[in-house]
């Protein structure tokens, strides 16, 4: 089951650039939360702060409190532990090119030293089914490279790979922006099914997508969170003028 995330006074920098400015936000457990906003507004940086991927860049820095359940992820745990509990799906599908489909999905477990074959088999099947890819690849699991799949299949494989380590939170950074409409709708269906079991945070440029999949939506602008509310309220009755301008297409 997923856990909620409480973000208090989160600030982030890339070098001297103050990318995130004092973000405060409660992300509820087992719901999908969408983050919208124009390019460069800090949405991606924000989700990367939630699994401490932000700090893999040597010039990046972050301060503030991010609580996952009872754990302060910046104080009480190592980045490696946090990333096992918070899965991430990236903008472009990033399969491990030298690994088979099976090894790609099992990689999170295998690379952490897990070797029990029966459990690996079971996990790979369960994860691929959860990512709605099982039927398409089950015959060539170990023969085909993960990189040989189509873009949409690769992205679903990456989702399966993230699910295989049994995370509580799933971060998705524009997971469908590099995909065609059919693949996009498959991914959206998937998010709809997954949010009963995982806390999902999805960054998207596509406002219809936010409206379709997320209960709550946050609007980011220039490194600040302008507004956070139920998706319905954001799109029908935004409190802030800037939010209204953005969703009505007046800028961005």
């Amino acid at each position, binding site marked *: 089951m997923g856990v909620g995330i409480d973000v208090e006074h989160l600030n982030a920098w890339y070098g001297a650039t103050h990318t995130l400015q004092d973000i405060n936000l409660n992300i509820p457990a087992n719901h999908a939360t969408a983050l919208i906003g124009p390019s460069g507004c800090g949405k991606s940086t924000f989700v990367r702060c939630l*699994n401490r*991927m932000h700090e*893999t860049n*040597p010039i990046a820095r972050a301060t503030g409190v991010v609580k996952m359940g009872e754990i302060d992820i910046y104080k009480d745990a190592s980045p*490696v*532990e*946090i*990333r*096992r*509990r918070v*899965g*991430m799906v*990236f903008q*472009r599908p*990033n*399969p*491990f*090119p*030298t*690994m*088979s489909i099976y090894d790609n999905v099992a*990689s*999170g477990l295998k*690379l*952490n030293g897990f070797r029990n074959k029966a459990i690996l088999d079971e996990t790979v099947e369960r994860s691929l089914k959860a990512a709605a890819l099982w039927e398409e690849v089950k015959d*060539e699991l170990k*023969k*085909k*490279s993960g*990189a*040989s*799949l189509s873009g949409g299949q690769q992205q679903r494989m*990456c989702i399966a*790979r*993230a699910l295989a*380590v049994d995370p509580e939170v799933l971060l998705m950074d524009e997971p469908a922006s590099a995909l065609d409409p059919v693949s996009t709708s498959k991914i959206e269906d998937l998010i709809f099914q997954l949010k009963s079991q995982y806390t999902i945070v999805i960054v998207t440029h596509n406002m219809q997508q936010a409206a379709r999949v997320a209960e709550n939506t946050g609007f980011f602008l220039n490194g600040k969170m302008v507004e956070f509310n139920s998706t319905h309220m954001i799109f029908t009755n935004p409190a802030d003028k800037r939010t209204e301008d953005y969703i009505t297409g007046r800028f961005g």
Partner: protein
Amino acid sequence: MSTDPTPIEAPADDNGFMRPPMDFQTRRMRWNSMRRHAVNHLVTGLALLSTLLVIAPLVAILAYLIYKGASSLNMAFFTQIPAPVGEPGGGMANAILGSGIILALASSMGIPVGIAAGVYLAEYGRGRMLAMAVRFTADVLNGVPSIVMGIAIYSLIVMRQMHFSAFSGGVALAIMMVPTITRTTEEMLATVPHAVREAALGLGVPKWRTVVSVSLRTASPGIITGCMLAFARVAGETAPLLFTAFGNQFWSYKLNEPIAALPLQIYIYAISPYDEWHRLAWAGSLVLILMIMMSVTLVRIYAGRGALKGAS
């Protein structure tokens, strides 16, 4: 304009009717198209010629070696040690074994050090002073003449131990392998997309494990090529062995004693005044080249096994 094409005569069709004359635009397009085709053929031809020029020396050398050396190849060559001057027969069995030992020593020292240094440069040392120093040193080391390497190892190891040894030969060749392997490893790791590393880190895989199981594995075909190039280069080196491994006319497999090596043996035989030894030198050269080609091919086959469908 002086560059304008000459007008193309409108040809008569089968019934003797003249087609309407082409306007200027059409003529110009046709002329351009002809020119493009001509340039295309010219450049393709040049590329083909260059390829032949590159392949020709290799084929010529191999053919000449077979012509000169194959007749002297027999079982004795692979099983006997050199015969005393004046006696016919004899072989280079000890030199083949010696080369194998020295190269195994050099590879077992040079490849791990080279790859480890390349990993440091690509994955840990980005932008650090030490990394820049290592990179610069590797490039300089790559340009050090092999005879200088031999003298350096002579004074560093041989002079202290007061005797020539297989070990010192191995060290000399290992140091010559390191810069090539380091730089190829670094360059190959740099071609691994950042997104692939992030995928592993995002799954909670520790950095060292990501480097070993994801970055190195993804870059492994290129790194293996680098190791093979370094190996093939030092396998034929004579100069660094002159003052280190020294050579030996008898069986020797001890690491702390002088040892025979194919390039050394070829060198000694080739400058000797005896026809019999000249023939053996040719045979030795052929064997040396075949050994290098064989080991490179074997590694390629071994490394290429288990490749997946559609793997990039």
